[in-house]
């Protein structure tokens, strides 16, 4: 370890000076600053090598094995295998070693191949050339040799080799355009800015002259956060310090666009770059099915251990008679005799464990994983979830949660971009209460339904005229929209024709684009931002220029943004635009009441409203503001908080100008989807940052609230009047009274009358409810709130901060029923709730792809949620439920006869089946049919599932994996295995179960031995277990027929082959001709048929009786559909005949 690094480490722990610990100093070009300024401490940083691979050639085998055996299941089988190797066990180590070896090898090959691909990709990345400036010249180097502090030259369409601070660009204004498509999927061009003092450097020489250090925070994975400071030393003066933010930081993996070249300095390299830090996988989510599966496994493990214990105990009780322990015909070796009784007992216990270990088969894990992995392809393949517009279908980011889609009880959805299109249309604006509708001018048409006042008629006096134009200018200036003069740009595009090239407005927020466009239609066209001057084309076709001084960016906490501009006449203005709730408190004059009334009116209509305010600034005020902002921007620590404070100081004492209204249309079929989800028994919550009235209007439009819904409000407005305590209790009483009467009504058959409730709560009230208990009474708020929510069919939470969304999800997740939650959203503000919910679904929307990237599944449109849950989720759930239950069932059937056999072989651990059968039962004889079933079973057709969402209720609450059903399957397995064993027992016992030794001749008959007995049981077992699955299958495609009958045929062919040859590599020939001899005996055939039928009888009977007497709605639909199809086919045949007659 390097000494300086050590010192660094020590200083980290000793100094306690946090500023030092959390930042790093980078010397640009590795040049020391002028002496005396600061101590030159060379720090060590990792090189620029990207290592995404897990293994190297040397450590692959040990590391991969270690990784694999860290899984409990693999470890369990390894232990069993080792036990078999060490002690004398009934079955050869091959029986468990071979499957384990197979599983481990396949996994290792898969992981090795993936790692090899990663190595290849790493090498390609690490060896690609980069241009580094050294001593004023451009040097080509391999990317991995890039070091922190190197100055890099990046040309157009090249990818940044590490995280870089932009020094200068080929463009005069020091900007460059970058697409981060490979990082977060946003293909729109983003603008990055060079450091002010270096942006003029245009040659290598100039860059080489630069002496500067960069202080910045240590690397952190957040792509959108960066704070730093650059100190530029010129001559011997004090260094000039400039703030650095994320707008100066070029991220590794992003691509340079529309810019000839840039000079930049590397600050985070290799594994410390933000891209590499984001490689880290998300925390694993586990599905409810998996949890029940593990619970079942524990039960089976207990059964296994108790079986082994019972048999060991009985063995020693039985052996207490020495003539039984060691009769004259069956002597022990001296070695065995001398062993201590405790050791013998322990080995016997282990031997029994080994004998019965197949009850928990390796193949179950493999099959479940294969089912999940392969099954998830059906989602990506789904044609109905393909969106022509986006050119993309659904995405599966994790296949572990497929079945969870069928278990959802709560749906949390975002509003903007999820329920709505996020495709904004400027509807109107209101200046001092006068309403302007752009269409009226633009198209020369009078729009019906628009609210009375026409723009021209309402022209106010000269004073008003001035205010009006100020308002329009404010909207033209207060935004972060860029103009792109390009043919094709992904993202949000709108053409503006200016005679020459087509330009588009591009912005990360569709609202802004809509507003700027709306202004254009009202006569003010925003042209471009050039040399820090915003150009506006006004109504008289004159170009007005405003110098852009500061942009106070939008954030979701402040919910507003501002710009400070200087007009050509030298006046300074601050324009501020934001949500009404964040503007009104800061307004000191203006026609607040009239605007407010209009805003509320629009909100009820479901429009998105923004308020605009301004403030004229004196030079002095501006100067103060600049200082305030600069000091905040330069701060290394808590920059965000300091900035917020500065913004708070600046954006106050505003003059209200007016408000705008933008419409966000509902997504196609959003209402239908929500209705289906409701019918499917899911509770839909809308969590939005929008204001209450807008959100409520959307909820009505999307049928979340119906006209009959009684709305309960829990908002700041109400809690201002009454205390939160009273409101909560009152609402609680209302809902609970209803609930009580409902339970009475269900008996009297009046349940259809019941009122359904909708709750509206806002962020402020929610945080009051969620506040940790101060005194005794407030601790109950959470409970009461949950109680109210549980009885509401729909809940709307408005004015939510992103983190609150996650809080709500967490609150519901932790409530006492532990419901399964699903969160769906499209924007970065939904990521926290997507990660928090059991299932997170991202909409590939317009606000970038962060949600899609962090989600478990991504779909193009909200409407696809319906098929995702009602069809795919439903199918996956019934498939995996059957898979799990069937696996346990078939292994009870398999192993329990062995257990019973111990009672007849002196508890000597004699296996009933041959080694080959023990090994292959789970691997090949019975594996494929259930795998196929779990991939393509459809108990009801897709169309019916979609048409009748209430079927989803049939599988709610993990009902196919309840203990009752699990016990039923286990008992069915026990019954079947009893039938197999005692059936064979009675055929063998006290009678001659015999066969003709010479085939085709009947003059002799022979006796069968124990291997024939085992083979008979095994044959019945394989047939019963396969046919049981066949009876459960409701969807017989040709593949099912092929696999089911094929695996039975395979069993027969294998048995013939296995017994047909003296295998030279085996040291025993116990199975030689056993199968053929068995089949040559008449009673064997009769016995097999009989036992298979007896085993299947109870299950068939149970199914038929349940269907006839207590049908579930699923079963009713199945029966009904059957009748219908019969009718249809008759009609079809009739029409066929009639048509044939007519010809």
């Amino acid at each position, binding site marked *: 370890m390097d000494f300086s690094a050590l010192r660094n480490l020590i200083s980290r722990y000793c100094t306690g000076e946090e500023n030092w610990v959390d930042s790093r100093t980078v010397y640009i070009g590795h040049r020391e600053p002028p002496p005396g300024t600061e101590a030159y401490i060379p720090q060590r940083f990792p090189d620029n090598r990207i290592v995404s691979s897990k293994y190297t050639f040397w450590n692959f085998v040990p590391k991969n094995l270690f990784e694999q055996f860290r899984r409990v299941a693999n470890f369990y089988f390894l232990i069993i295998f080792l036990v078999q190797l060490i002690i004398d066990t009934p079955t050869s180590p091959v029986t468990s070693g071979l499957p384990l070896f197979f599983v481990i090898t396949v996994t290792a090959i898969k992981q090795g191949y993936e790692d090899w691909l990663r190595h290849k990709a790493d090498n390609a990345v690490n060896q690609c050339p980069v241009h580094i400036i050294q001593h004023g010249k451009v040097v080509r180097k391999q990317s991995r040799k890039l070091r922190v502090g190197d100055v890099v030259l990046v040309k157009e369409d090249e990818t940044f080799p590490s995280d870089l601070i932009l020094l200068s660009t080929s463009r005069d204004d020091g900007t460059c355009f970058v697409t981060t498509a490979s990082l977060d999927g946003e293909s729109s061009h983003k603008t990055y800015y060079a450091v002010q003092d270096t942006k003029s450097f245009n040659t290598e020489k100039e860059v080489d002259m630069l002496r500067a250090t960069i202080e910045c925070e240590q690397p952190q994975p957040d792509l959108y956060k960066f704070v730093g400071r650059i100190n530029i030393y010129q001559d011997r003066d004090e260094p000039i310090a400039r703030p650095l933010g994320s707008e100066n930081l070029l991220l590794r993996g992003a691509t340079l666009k529309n810019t000839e070249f840039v000079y930049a300095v590397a600050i985070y390299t290799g594994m410390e770059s933000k891209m590499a830090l984001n490689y880290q996988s998300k925390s694993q989510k586990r599905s409810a099915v998996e949890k029940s599966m593990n619970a079942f496994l524990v039960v089976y493990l207990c059964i296994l251990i108790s079986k082994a214990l019972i048999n060991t105990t009985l063995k020693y009780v039985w052996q207490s008679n020495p003539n039984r322990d060691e009769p004259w015909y069956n002597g022990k070796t001296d070695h065995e005799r001398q062993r201590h009784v405790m050791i013998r007992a322990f080995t016997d216990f282990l031997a029994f464990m080994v004998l019965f270990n197949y009850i928990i088969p390796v193949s179950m894990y493999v099959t479940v994983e294969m089912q999940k992995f392969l099954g998830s392809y059906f989602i*990506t393949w789904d044609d109905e979830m393909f969106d022509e517009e986006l*050119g993309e279908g659904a995405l599966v980011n994790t296949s572990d949660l497929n079945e969870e889609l069928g278990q959802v009880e709560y749906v949390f959805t975002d509003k903007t971009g999820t329920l709505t299109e996020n495709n904004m249309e400027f509807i109107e604006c209101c200046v001092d209460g006068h309403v302007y509708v752009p269409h009226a001018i633009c198209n020369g048409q009078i729009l019906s339904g628009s609210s009375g006042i026409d723009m021209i008629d309402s022209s106010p006096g000269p004073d008003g005229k001035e205010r009006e134009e100020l308002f329009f200018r404010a909207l033209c200036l207060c935004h972060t929209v860029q103009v792109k003069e390009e043919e094709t740009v992904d993202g949000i595009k709108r053409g503006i024709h200016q005679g020459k090239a087509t330009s588009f407005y591009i912005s990360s927020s569709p609202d802004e684009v809509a507003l700027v466009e709306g202004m254009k239609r009202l006569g003010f066209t925003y042209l471009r931002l050039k040399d820090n001057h915003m150009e506006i084309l006004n109504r008289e076709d004159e170009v007005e220029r405003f110098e852009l001084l500061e942009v106070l960016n939008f954030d979701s906490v402040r919910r507003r943004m501002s710009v400070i501009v200087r007009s050509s006449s030298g006046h300074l203005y601050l324009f501020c635009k934001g949500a009404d709730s964040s503007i009104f408190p800061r307004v000191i004059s203006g026609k607040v009441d009239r605007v407010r009334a209009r805003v509320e009116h629009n909100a009820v209509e479901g429009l998105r409203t923004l308020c605009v305010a301004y403030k004229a600034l004196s030079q002095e005020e501006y100067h103060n503001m600049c200082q305030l902002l600069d000091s905040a921007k330069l701060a290394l620590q808590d920059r965000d908080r300091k900035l917020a404070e500065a913004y708070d100081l600046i954006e106050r004492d505003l003059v209200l100008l007016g408000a705008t209204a933008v419409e966000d249309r509902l997504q196609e079929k959003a209402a239908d989807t929500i209705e289906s989800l409701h019918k499917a028994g899911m509770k839909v919550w809308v969590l939005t940052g929008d204001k209450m009235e807008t959100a409520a209007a959307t909820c009505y439009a999307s049928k979340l609230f119906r006209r009959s819904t009684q709305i309960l409000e829990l908002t700041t407005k109400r809690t201002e009047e009454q205390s939160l305590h009273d409101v909560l209790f009152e609402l609680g009483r209302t809902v609970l009274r209803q609930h009580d009467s409902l339970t009475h009504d269900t008996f009297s058959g009046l349940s259809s009358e019941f009122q359904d409730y909708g709750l509206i709560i806002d962020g402020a009230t929610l945080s009051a409810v969620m506040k940790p208990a101060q005194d005794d009474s407030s601790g109950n708020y959470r409970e009461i709130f949950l109680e109210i929510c549980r009885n509401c069919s729909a809940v709307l939470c408005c004015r939510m901060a992103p983190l609150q969304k996650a809080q709500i999800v967490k609150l519901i997740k932790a409530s006492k029923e532990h419901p399964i939650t699903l969160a769906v959203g499209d924007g970065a503000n939904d990521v926290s709730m997507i990660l928090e919910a059991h299932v997170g679904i991202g909409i590939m929307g317009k606000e970038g792809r962060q949600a899609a990237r962090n989600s478990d599944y991504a779909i193009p449109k909200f409407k696809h949620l319906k098929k995702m849950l009602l069809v795919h989720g439903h199918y996956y759930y019934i498939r995996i439920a059957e898979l799990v239950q069937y696996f346990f069932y078939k292994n009870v059937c398999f192993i329990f006869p062995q257990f019973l056999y111990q009672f007849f072989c002196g508890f000597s651990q004699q296996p009933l089946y041959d080694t080959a059968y023990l090994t292959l039962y789970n691997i090949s004889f019975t594996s494929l049919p259930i795998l196929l079933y779990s991939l393509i079973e459809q108990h009801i057709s897709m169309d019916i599932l979609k048409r009748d969402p209430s079927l989803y209720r049939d599988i709610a609450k993990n009902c196919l994996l309840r203990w009752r059903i699990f016990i039923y399957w286990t008992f069915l397995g026990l019954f079947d295995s009893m039938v197999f064993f005692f059936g064979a027992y009675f*055929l063998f016992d006290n009678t001659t179960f015999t066969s003709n030794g010479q085939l085709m001749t009947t003059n002799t008959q022979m006796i069968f*031995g124990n291997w024939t007995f085992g083979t008979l049981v095994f044959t019945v077992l394989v047939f019963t277990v396969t046919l049981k699955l066949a009876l459960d299958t*409701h969807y017989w495609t040709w593949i099912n027929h092929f696999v089911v009958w094929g695996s039975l045929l395979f069993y027969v062919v294998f048995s013939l082959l296995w017994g047909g040859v003296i295998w030279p590599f085996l040291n025993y020939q116990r199975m030689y001709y056993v199968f053929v001899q068995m089949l040559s005996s008449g009673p064997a055939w009769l016995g097999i048929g009989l036992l298979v039928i007896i085993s299947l009888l109870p299950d068939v009977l149970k199914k038929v009786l349940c*269907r*006839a007497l207590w049908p579930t709605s699923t079963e*009713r639909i199945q029966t009904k559909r059957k009748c219908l199809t019969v009718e249809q086919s008759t009609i079809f045949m009739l029409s066929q005949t009639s048509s044939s007659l007519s010809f």
Partner: protein
Amino acid sequence: MMASSYSTKEEDGHQSGAPGPGGGVNAKSRKPDNTAFKQQRLPAWQPILTAGTVLPAFFIIGLLFIPIGIGLYVTSNNIKEYEIDYTGVDMSSPCFNCSQNYSWNSTKPCRCSVSFSLDQPFESNVFMYYGLSNYYQNHRRYVKSRDDSQLNGNLNALKDPSKECEPYRMNDGLPIAPCGAIANSLFNDTLELYYNDPNGTKTLIKLVKTGIAWWTDKHVKFRNPVGDGSNLSAVFQGTTKPVNWQKYVYQLDSDPDNNGFINEDLIVWMRTAALPTFRKLYRIIEKQGDATPTLPRGNYTLLVTYNYPVRSFEGRKRMILSTISWMGGKNPFLGIAYITVGSVCFFLGVVLLIIHHKYGSRSNNADISS
């Protein structure tokens, strides 16, 4: 075609298909294939187990199984079987003495004769079995105590038997042939059957001792090692007999085709029984001519050379005479089981029929109303 076309009706599909090409051009290659498999719309048969569909199956099973069961039961009852226990547990039984003073090394064989009478004549071929009870041939230590390659005539295995044969692998430094506990405990009682003519003379009944093992065992699985000469004793030179045997393996029979490892008594014994109570084929009494039954009714004497001790582990020894049918030996279980299952199915069919009539219509009505 278009993504939504198949969910709509066919006419709509055509309509929406008409302006389709525009959308089709824009669609990228990422669009999933519209194959039946990928869309989970493979044509399929969708059976449902309802009372209606299962009813016929129940009746068919019922109608099929009852006659089969009756047939099996009658056939089984027609089989004649006679069983006699000659262990000699009681003081009164003729073999009591032999069973009491027993030692492996006694050179003088102990003989006892048991008389019995057959009430009915045994037609056709009669099979003679010995049966053992409480004898754990299926004990794990016992089952694996053999060397199949030695028995297959492998010379290496002959001289160096498998470890599995311990402690019956070597004796006095010589390898045991055949090694292992199974071979060591070969059943060595000799049973002879005499017919007591009413006129007082005893006729020895001819017992055939070949053809009692599986053909494949006798001809493939079990082979005598091939040595220099045809003389078996030369081939087995350098090996010793199992501890409990009185003679060497090449002395088991005078017939060279039934001697050494391919001795059928040995082969039968080597096929370990499944359960602690078992019987093994001992001899066959072939039918002499059409005129007389193989075993006419009357008195018989079983002459036992009592060599095999079973008293120490409370075992029993039996001799069984039985005829066979097409379905093997006497086996009432199968017939009774078939009759029972058949009747249960028939009964269930009737119950289901009632349920189907009562509830089937009701649930259908409920469907229509819902």
